[in-house]
């Protein structure tokens, strides 16, 4: 298209909007990782004995592992000894009881991020468990959730208050030795969220967590564990922004979802970590292991993700469909620009009978970025009448980027129906021309087309997230395609 060169230029000119650093004194470990660091970490957190053993076991296993290199990614070697594995706001020994006690500078940070911590935003009906670096600073709406019987708290708190519950489920979906980054996370995770929805409860509000990497050189390792007991329902939102930093920052999270009979978890993510500058310097390395296990009959898991940030994204939210009639869904929009690299997709493992899964993946690559969809649909021998529909479309903006599709389909059951479709193209010139001919500027037209391209994913997002996602897409593609 005629405008593409200039679009890319203006694209490259885009600065990261959320780039700022909050000057808060932090209590940080010196860089390095060994068993003593883990023991110290565990002691600071006041964790029960089993947790330390769990961490050490994971760490010992991690030492025997090598980084995965099968992804379509070009990763600078990571020195795991040069990373500090713990960083907490100074006042962690004296946790704030109300908002007034919180460092005003922190509050300012959250304001910039638009996190609804104060009264006015409380009315928005969103409970927020904000993770500032590694320690949770404030939690709201606890009371209301408690009335419903829902447990929503930092996982470090859960380890102290509900150790049996955590012990029962932690590591059962993503075992500590599952993969290199999951093992690392199991060894050193500092915090994260824990959610338990009891039997028959429909969570009264959408749960939301914002993560933020702040101190330089600190890896952030969150651990999220969500359990939806029989007949329950929960919608969980996760969103991230990170300040501008030059060093590559490592982010290795693990998310585990457990879904029992007739329960449903809807997990939505907007990911906007710092992607590095226009020359590919800096940016977050995002290695995430997300997996859901539909253990019960008629259970359902829905992953929705909008990935616009990170220098490197390595993320495959998966569904293990164990229960009969269980349903797995995956909706994804991945946008890459400049030198960003994304290798993302999903795994749908059909084990139970009449299990269904849907995969809708939209990849948009611009600049010199590489965007890869990698997915597995596996139908086990006893998964009669399993059904999968996969659609992955890629849109290319500019002639120096790449879009790749690597689906794997493995079927051992004749009654299964598996369909996969993929297309790759650039924005249709006919469509552009049509819009322009109706008096819509090229920029607006491209924006319309891209929004239309992503619509089937955005409509799966909860209301407020859909707005944020569209805004993010706007920021990412403003000047180039929107």
């Amino acid at each position, binding site marked *: 298209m005629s405008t593409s060169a200039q679009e890319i230029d203006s694209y490259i000119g885009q600065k990261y909007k959320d780039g700022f650093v909050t000057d808060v004194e932090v209590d940080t470990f010196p860089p390095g990782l060994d068993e003593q660091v883990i023991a110290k970490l565990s002691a600071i957190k006041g964790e029960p004995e089993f947790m330390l053993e769990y961490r050490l076991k994971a760490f010992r296993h991690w030492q025997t592992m090598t980084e995965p290199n*099968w992804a*379509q990614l070009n990763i600078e070697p990571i020195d795991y000894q040069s990373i500090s594995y713990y960083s907490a706001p100074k006042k962690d020994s004296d946790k704030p009881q109300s908002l007034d006690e919180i460092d005003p500078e922190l509050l300012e940070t959250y304001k910039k991020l638009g996190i609804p911590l104060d009264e006015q935003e409380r009315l928005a009906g969103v409970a927020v468990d904000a993770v500032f670096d590694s320690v949770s600073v404030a939690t709201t709406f606890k009371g209301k959730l408690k009335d419903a019987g829902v447990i929503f708290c930092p996982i470090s708190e859960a380890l102290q208050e509900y150790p049996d519950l955590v012990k029962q489920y932690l590591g059962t979906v993503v075992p500590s030795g599952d993969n290199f980054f999951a093992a690392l996370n199991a060894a050193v995770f500092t915090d994260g969220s824990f959610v338990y929805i009891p039997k028959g409860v429909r969570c009264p509000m959408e749960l939301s967590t914002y993560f933020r990497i702040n101190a330089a050189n600190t890896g952030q390792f969150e651990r999220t564990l969500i359990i939806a007991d029989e007949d329950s329902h929960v919608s969980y939102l996760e969103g991230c922004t990170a300040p501008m930093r030059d060093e590559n920052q490592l982010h290795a999270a693990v998310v585990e979802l457990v879904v029992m009979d007739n329960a449903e978890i809807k997990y939505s993510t907007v990911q906007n970590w710092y992607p590095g500058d226009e020359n590919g310097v800096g940016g977050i390395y995002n290695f995430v292991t997300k997996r859901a296990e539909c253990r019960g009959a008629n259970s359902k898991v829905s992953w929705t993700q909008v990935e616009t940030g990170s220098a490197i994204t390595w993320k495959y939210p998966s569904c293990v469909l164990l229960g009969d009639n269980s349903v797995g869904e995956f909706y994804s929009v991945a946008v890459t620009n400049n030198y960003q690299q994304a290798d993302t997709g999903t795994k749908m493992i059909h084990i139970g009978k009449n299990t269904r899964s849907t995969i809708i993946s939209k990849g948009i690559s611009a600049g010199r970025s590489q965007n890869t969809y990698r997915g597995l649909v596996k*139908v086990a*021998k006893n998964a009669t009448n399993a059904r999968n529909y996969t659609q992955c479309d*890629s849109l*290319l*903006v*500019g*002639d*120096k*980027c*790449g*879009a*790749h*599709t*690597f*689906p*794997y*389909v*493995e*079927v*051992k*059951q*004749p*009654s*299964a*129906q*598996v*369909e*996969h*479709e*993929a*297309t*790759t*193209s*650039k924005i249709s010139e006919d469509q552009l021309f049509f819009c322009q001919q109706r008096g819509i500027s090229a920029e607006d037209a491209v924006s319309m087309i891209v929004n239309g391209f992503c619509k089937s994913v955005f409509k799966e997002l909860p209301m407020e997230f859909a707005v944020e996602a569209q805004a993010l897409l706007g920021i990412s593609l403003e000047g180039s395609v929107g």
Partner: protein
Amino acid sequence: MSAVKTISQYPTEYEKFSDALPGQLVSWLRLLRQDAAQHFSAHGFPSLREEEWRYTNVSAIEKKLFSPVATSEIGAVDMDSLKQHLIADAWSVVLVDGHYSASLSNLDGIPESVTVMNMASAVEQRADLLEKYFSQVVDSKEHGFVAFNTAWFSDGLFIHVPAKQVLAKPIQILHIVTQAGFMANTRDIIVLEESAEAKVIETYVGCDDAYCSAAVMEIALEQNADLTLYKLQMEGEKAYHFGGTYVKQARDSRFTHHNFAFGGLLARNDTHTDLGHASACDLNGLYLGVKRQHIDNHTRINHLQPHAISHELYKGVLNQRAKGVFQGRVLVAEQAQKTDSMMNNRNLLLSDDAEADTKPQLEIYADDVKCAHGVTVGQLDEQSVFYLQSRCVDKQTARNMLTFAFANEMVGKIKLPELHDRVLAQLLQRFPQAGIQQDWL
């Protein structure tokens, strides 16, 4: 690349025969063979750990240690038994146990300007021409089978069609293996000069015992050349088959491939093509698996220049305990703008124990392209079966008819009438009653 793989018994076994192999006096070939042998000794046959081989375990070939065939051991084959495999209206070349048989071959009336020569003679008589093409289309280090083939191929065929020559009749290459435990290791090279046109039929047959046939074919199509290649893989049911077809297409050339994989206990086929400016390739495949067959089809289409078109359709029917694998990769290089690529893979699973693994891949570095792929795995449409049953067709016949129709699409693409009828007969043999014509339907 695992440590276990470095120990293959084959090199020691095959080194003994090295001196008897063709081309040992041709220095460039000897070096190539040595290099490949070294590579093979270090890596062996591909392992499941290699991404391109993750669904196909070839360790049985290593275990069985198929022996090379010395010229004195070549089995006797009489012409009558070959008749059923040979196309009447074609020039034919017969390779028995990996060695050319002049008495069984028939090249009467082939234009003099066209070279059709067995590889053992060609490496001596046409060494200069051969050097230009040998190991140029596929790197002998591509994987274990290619290295193995380069190191120890015993014979093969060299076809060279000069510029603007159009062959009136197809050339059929019949590979036959006569005895258990044999390894027929052949190398074919086909060169079509500018605007030349040819049709080639490869047929693989063999005895009922376990043997292995490993064939590597390199094809160079110069500007505006046109090649249609039919491959009929009807190996014996205990046979191991590896077939690699590697193509390099120059500007405006056309390559059409019809790949029928019916036989073998373990069969793997590689079809790779590098597309030049505005060239086109059409890859068609049909694999039918029964019993414990494992059939793997691996295709790679590299769009290296602009304006090229590729179409690919592979269909599989898997019954009983058969396993079908399809791996297709389309790569579009940065400069290959205006690429048009379409890949499709359709699998039909007919029994509880059958399995289909499929992996279509798009790797795209250019933006002005139209690329798509599609995959389905499923069973016969119950409503269609019911419809036929409601018309008094019993269930099994109805299923046969529908399966036949599914597969017949690929057979229908064969443009040579005699070959078409032969393959159709093969298909009907597998799905009895499927071809019945009943006017009341």
